């Protein structure tokens, strides 16, 4: 195969990667996007065997087989909740691979060693190693094999700064001296730096760091591409680097975290104040986008309005949301609790004002048996009327009151402003349930956002 054809096929794989990322940005095309990416990677891998001399073929195929045997079952068997740490691990080994490739290439370099090539090689080694060790630490954190809280030790920030300086210094040494030993020193120091970099990062920030390390790994691949003169690797690596950077920023924004704080947490070396500080128990809070996606892919949604809907005067907005869902073919009902609100029939008055057809309003007794077939119950400014304490906590003020059993739905979304309780003044366990997602904010504002997000899907 001529160089040109080979490069052309590489470019085609690059295009597939572009299409993959494009596809992955949209729920409807995400799966196809991923498959396109896999196709690109497959083509790129196969074609390399038909280009130029391939020695050690057996070793190569064997190694690929080993990698497959390790990677596929891990990916297949992992539980939903453990996926993030697996992604971290995969990212780490990718970084490690890039570093190894660079080291081997370096050993092999000989007279091709222009300064630029050496710089790129060292860059790959440094970043690849940081990504490797950093990812391993995030993996350990997420898997709870070590503490999830930020690990901070006295003088930590000086140690980190010193390590970074050592990494840079030894890198310069490699560029100037061109020796194997210096390179191994660089690798070791980088590994250490990766660990130190991630240790002070606390719980909620970990995914952001994974995303960042992912972008880093992308850049190492691009750098390898330069060294190996491969357009494909340049394009693929840069793509991942760029999109990963944007993604990291978006993730930080979506979680309401400061990217700067996350990154330089290591240097400021003070424990981040995590959301855990506000509430003792963790709750799962989501964005309007998350809510919209859940709704978009639901077949049946039950809306549970309460006093908060009335306070926010969000009746028109809730109708808008319901209409939108209905137009998407989703089965929508309102589950009306007899004492929702502060007046008998409060919800009726409210919803009638928005001209919501009477036949969409379903009484408690009728709606309760249907929660089992409901994908999403969206509780808007209600609290007591869905509080399981009414069934489980004898002695509490609402004990014995029948409730809307939203916890039987596959997902529960709460729209409220805070963790404050409702009229009866008692905590609602359902807020802490793993299948509950909270969208904080005034019900009207939140609903408006959800409507926009749902329209955009």
């Amino acid at each position, binding site marked *: 195969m001529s*160089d040109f054809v080979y490069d052309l096929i590489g470019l085609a*794989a690059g295009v597939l990667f*572009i299409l*993959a*990322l494009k596809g*992955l*940005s949209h729920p*409807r095309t*995400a799966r196809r996007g*991923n498959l396109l*990416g896999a196709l*690109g*990677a497959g083509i790129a*891998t196969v074609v390399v065997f038909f280009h130029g001399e391939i*020695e*050690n*073929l057996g070793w*190569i195929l064997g*190694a*690929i087989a*080993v*990698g*497959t045997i*390790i*990677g596929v079952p891990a990916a297949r068997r*992992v539980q939903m909740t453990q*996926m*993030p740490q697996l*992604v971290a691990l*995969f*990212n780490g*080994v990718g970084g490690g691979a890039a570093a190894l*490739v660079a*080291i*081997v290439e370096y050993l*092999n370099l000989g007279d091709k060693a222009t300064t*630029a090539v050496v710089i790129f090689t060292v860059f790959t080694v440094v970043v690849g190693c940081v990504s490797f060790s950093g990812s391993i630490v995030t993996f350990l954190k997420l898997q709870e094999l070590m503490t999830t809280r930020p690990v901070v030790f006295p003088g930590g920030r000086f140690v980190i700064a010193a390590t970074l300086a050592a990494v840079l210094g030894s890198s310069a040494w490699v560029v100037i001296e061109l020796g194997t030993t210096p390179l191994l020193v660089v690798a070791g120091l980088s590994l250490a730096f990766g660990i130190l970099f991630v240790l002070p990062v606390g719980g909620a920030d970990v*995914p952001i760091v994974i*995303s960042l390390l992912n972008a880093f790994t992308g850049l*190492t*691949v691009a750098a390898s591409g330069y060294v*190996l003169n*491969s*357009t494909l690797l340049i*394009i693929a690596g840069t*793509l*991942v*680097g*760029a*999109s*990963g950077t*944007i*993604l990291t920023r978006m993730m930080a924004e*979506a979680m309401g975290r400061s990217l700067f704080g996350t990154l330089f947490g290591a240097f400021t070396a003070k424990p981040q104040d995590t959301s855990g500080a506000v509430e003792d128990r963790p709750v799962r809070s989501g964005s309007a986008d*998350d809510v919209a*996606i*859940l709704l*978009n*892919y639901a077949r049946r949604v039950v809306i549970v309005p309460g006093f908060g809907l009335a306070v926010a005067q969000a009746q028109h907005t809730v109708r808008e949301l319901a209409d939108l869902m209905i137009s*998407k073919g989703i089965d929508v009902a309102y589950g009306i609790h007899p004492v929702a609100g502060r007046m008998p029939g409060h919800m009726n008055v409210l919803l009638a004002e928005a001209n919501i057809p009477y036949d969409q309003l379903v009484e408690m007794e009728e709606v309760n048996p249907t929660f089992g077939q409901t994908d999403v119950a969206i509780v808007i400014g209600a609290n007591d009327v869905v509080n399981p304490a009414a069934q489980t906590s004898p002695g509490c003020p609402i004990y014995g009151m029948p409730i809307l059993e939203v916890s039987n739905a596959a997902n529960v979304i709460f729209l409220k402003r805070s963790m404050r309780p409702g009229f009866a003044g008692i905590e609602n366990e359902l807020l802490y349930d793993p299948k509950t997602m909270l969208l904080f904010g005034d019900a009207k504002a939140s609903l408006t956002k959800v409507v926009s997000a749902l329209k955009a899907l």
Partner: protein
Amino acid sequence: MELTAIAVISIFTLSIFVGFEVVSKVSSTLHTPLMSGANAIHGVILVGAIIVCSHASTTLELSLSIAAIILATINMIGGFVVTDRMLEMFKGKKGAEK
């Protein structure tokens, strides 16, 4: 044929734009799958690993590059598989019209 510096820079710059643009508006539910997909893509370092392995002369080089191949394969194949699994929730979607 070697790529000229300006070609590399051009390709790099344009790729950055493409990378920025294609993911510029992603809903947060897709953040993790997108990250995972991108992660799998950088598994193409496998190509690099194969190349260096095929030129490996010393045992050190060979063993390092074999390690690189294994790691890269895990990254690439595992990455795509895990991403696909994450995206299962979008499978049963009814044709949300528009």
